[in-house]
């Protein structure tokens, strides 16, 4: 595995130039080569959703995508959500509703919700629950995450 590919990744509107093996996952490259460790890896087989990031507007499991597949696409990670010290409304809603405990799965949930709400700005409760069931959280029992989403939807509405 000595041949490496030079890539330019557009993450949070900034260019990252990296040399990676073809088999390196996008999650690993974002974390280890770009130093953006807020994207967290929980299962490495695409079920838990902790590594969810937004690629060209869609929520993506970063553990199931190879880094070279992401070239030329617009990538957004948790580090691109807050503006300085000002939290993004989704981050604020999570804090307001105690929607995180250990916080390991939280960036994945926030990125999932961010991408999904772009497409579904006025969801019904059942749709929110359906969306949230894409990711796993072991701490909260989800109800406070649901409340956080309701708060954001109300703010957006």
């Amino acid at each position, binding site marked *: *595995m*000595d041949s490496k590919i030079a890539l330019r990744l557009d993450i949070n509107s900034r260019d990252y130039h990296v040399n990676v*093996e073809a*088999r*390196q996952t996008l999650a*690993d490259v974002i*974390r*280890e080569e770009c*130093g*953006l*460790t*807020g*994207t*967290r*890896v*929980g*299962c*490495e*087989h695409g*079920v*838990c959703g*902790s590594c969810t990031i937004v690629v060209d507007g869609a929520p993506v499991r970063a553990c199931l995508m190879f880094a070279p597949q992401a070239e030329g696409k617009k990538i957004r*990670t*948790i*580090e691109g*959500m*807050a503006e300085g010290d000002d*939290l993004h409304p989704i*981050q604020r809603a*999570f*804090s*307001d509703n*105690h929607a*995180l*405990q*250990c*916080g*390991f*799965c*939280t*960036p994945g949930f*926030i990125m999932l919700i961010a991408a999904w709400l772009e497409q579904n700005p006025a969801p019904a409760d059942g749709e929110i*629950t*359906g969306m*949230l*069931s894409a*990711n*796993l*959280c*072991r*701490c*909260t*029992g*989800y*109800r*406070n*995450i*649901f409340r956080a989403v309701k708060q954001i939807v109300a703010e957006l509405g």
Partner: protein
Amino acid sequence: MTPNNSVLGASVSRLEDHGLLTGQSRFIDDLQLPGTLSAAFVRSPYGHALINGVNTEAACQVPGVVAVYTLTDLQPWLTDTRMATGLPSNSFRLDVNPRVLAADEVVYVGEPIAVVIAASRYAAEDAADLVEVDCEPLEVVADCRAALLADSPGAHRKLSHNLVAAFDFDYGHVEDAFRQADVIINESFRLHRGGAHSIEGRGAVASHDPVTGKLTLWTSTQRPHGVKRVICDLLGCNDDSVRVVAPQIGGGFGPKLVCYPEEVVVAVCGKLLQQPVKWTQDRYEYFLSTTQERDQYWDVEIAVDNDAMIKGVRGALLHDHGAYTARGLNVPYASGVALPLAYNIPAYHLDVYAVLTNKVPVTPVRGAGQPQGVFVMERLLDRVAAGLSLDRAEVRRRNLVRKEQMPCRKSLKLRGGTEVILDSGDYPATQELALEHAGWAAFGERQQAALEQGRHIGIGLANFVEGTGRGPYETVTVRINPSGNILVATGATAMGQSTQTMLAQIVAGQLGGDLSLVSVNCGDTDATPLGFGGFNSRQTVVAGASAHAAARAVRDKVFRLASRRLEAAERDLEINGHNVFVKDMPDRKLTFAQLARAASGLPGFKLPVAESGPGLEATESVVIDDMVYSNGSAVAEVEVDIDTGQVDIHRFLIVHDCGRMINPALVEGQVAGGIAHGIGNALFEWMGFDDNAQPVTTTFADYLLVSADKMPALELFHRESASPFNELGVKGVGESGCLPTPAAIVAAIEDALKPFDVKLNQAPLTPAVLWGLIRPAPGISAPEHWRSPGIDTAAYRKGVLL
């Protein structure tokens, strides 16, 4: 001088949130020290096998590989090849401490045999695949029931039997109770709990500093002090040369309280290679090698009179211990203690057998055996109700420990010999509140109406009492720094339960109420040399007590000094934020920074308050031996689809009492999370092994955690019976939610299936299991885990080596 209590008891925002929400907090795999090497482990593919040899040649050729080590390579650096990690007990009959690496025999699938160290994790894992282990499979002990039969092979080749420990609980006149009983009901239960599955797996980073000679191990652990002890002992280091730090922990739920072989190996390699070494567990490894809770088989009977008053409970518990003793006997012990806690049971005898199997060791998962004890007791009471044609709630009402009995001394002892004294609470009132909110009395009509429409709905009730606040202490230091901020350092370890916020609220309650001034350093053995960490719903109780005492001691120092400097009596002083001022004269004030600088002293000058000593600092380790007992009552309402075995939880409500709440939002978060885990244990989570003890559920697609669409809207209600056993009046809450949940849900399912006369004595009840119980098809034999439970008592008693 009244403390600022507005911050204590309030649902304030968490200190932890900002870093977690922005991705800035650092979990173990986020630590990236320059020059870090990656470790990957070679693990046993067999449940039980001899190792005839390990060939590392091909692995060493992989580009990027730095070293491949077996036990033989590491042994010169170790004082022992076994890890003494279990709590002591006189009940042990076999000494089976885990090995650092397996050398001649492997005893569970996933047991580490060798480690590859390479420049990247990719290279390390490639090379690990190329390590050839010459294994000779041996007979496997896959079932803890068969393991006790006289002809069973040993889980370890040199053992002639598998009974690793036996003990009993015994009080009252059990024989008399059963002789005089009007009704005796006897049941067998099969209870399975899977893994903990924090979304973050385990991991460790070791870095040896060649300048100071100090080895630092960051590890995703609930007990950094426990890990440090093992590392110091095994590496032959003195305590000053090892530091263990728990970084941000992505959930623990029990298994991270164990010190694991990987932590020791990573530490040795970091020292040996003089370069940082990191190991990050993947989920497959979590399924194989992180401790689980798994299987218990209960065979119990209850004696009651015609009024349903309990006379006695007796029986036996078979507990799957796994292949090694990784923590002790605390899971089956806690099961046995939990069973009789909530009720007045005059006589109790339970024989407990802990049995070796060729599976990953068993240690506590959130609840630590207590949900099983609760399940058995609650199901027995439902059977009593059915047998005597009484309402299930009424049977409980007659037998619950009553408020006027508090504090109630039970004839039970904790594992360390301390007596079990229920400190406070009103269990019958808790149950009544739950019944009222649930509309328990009117449910029968609804059920009948539903049945007439072909719908099967049911309701179930379960009470629990949870032992919390395991002592003997947790150390807390509180210091006002010369910069004016408040530092709290403690051996308590945070893994998502908001420990920092909880301690900050207690400290700020004494010191001005401004949480933004407070930072909390948890889980660093250099910051707090003595400590225990996070387990057993203990930290609010034990660390909370020490934080309270230390903050008050610092407050006394603040007032003594300010009183002299402001020329006012101490009783006339107040603290608000970082200002200490004379009541009603806010301009006559000193800041924390000014006071801390003054208290630090000047060279050649006397300290401003000699009797306070230097600085504004205090360290306390409040010793608490007695546990405190939270309680609660849960009601579940379900609908069962009899065509598919699918269960929908329509309602789940709990009334719980954890004493005084430091932060109600956080308490609710803990309860809700525990309930989610309990729902998993009731309906979904099954850690499967085949007959060769080969794990068959090793992804989140096979092993199902509760997802958002499976969570009912929870209804949570609080009661607050302050504990008289600690000054804050608090009790623990971290595990409470999962204690009554499987019992309540399974009771509700059984109630829904009344027309089928199905007896549900097991958990989890997956749709396949339920469907098989509802419609047993002739000629089709269900897989082993579908079968209704039952211990062949005669067989194992005959075979058991007592």
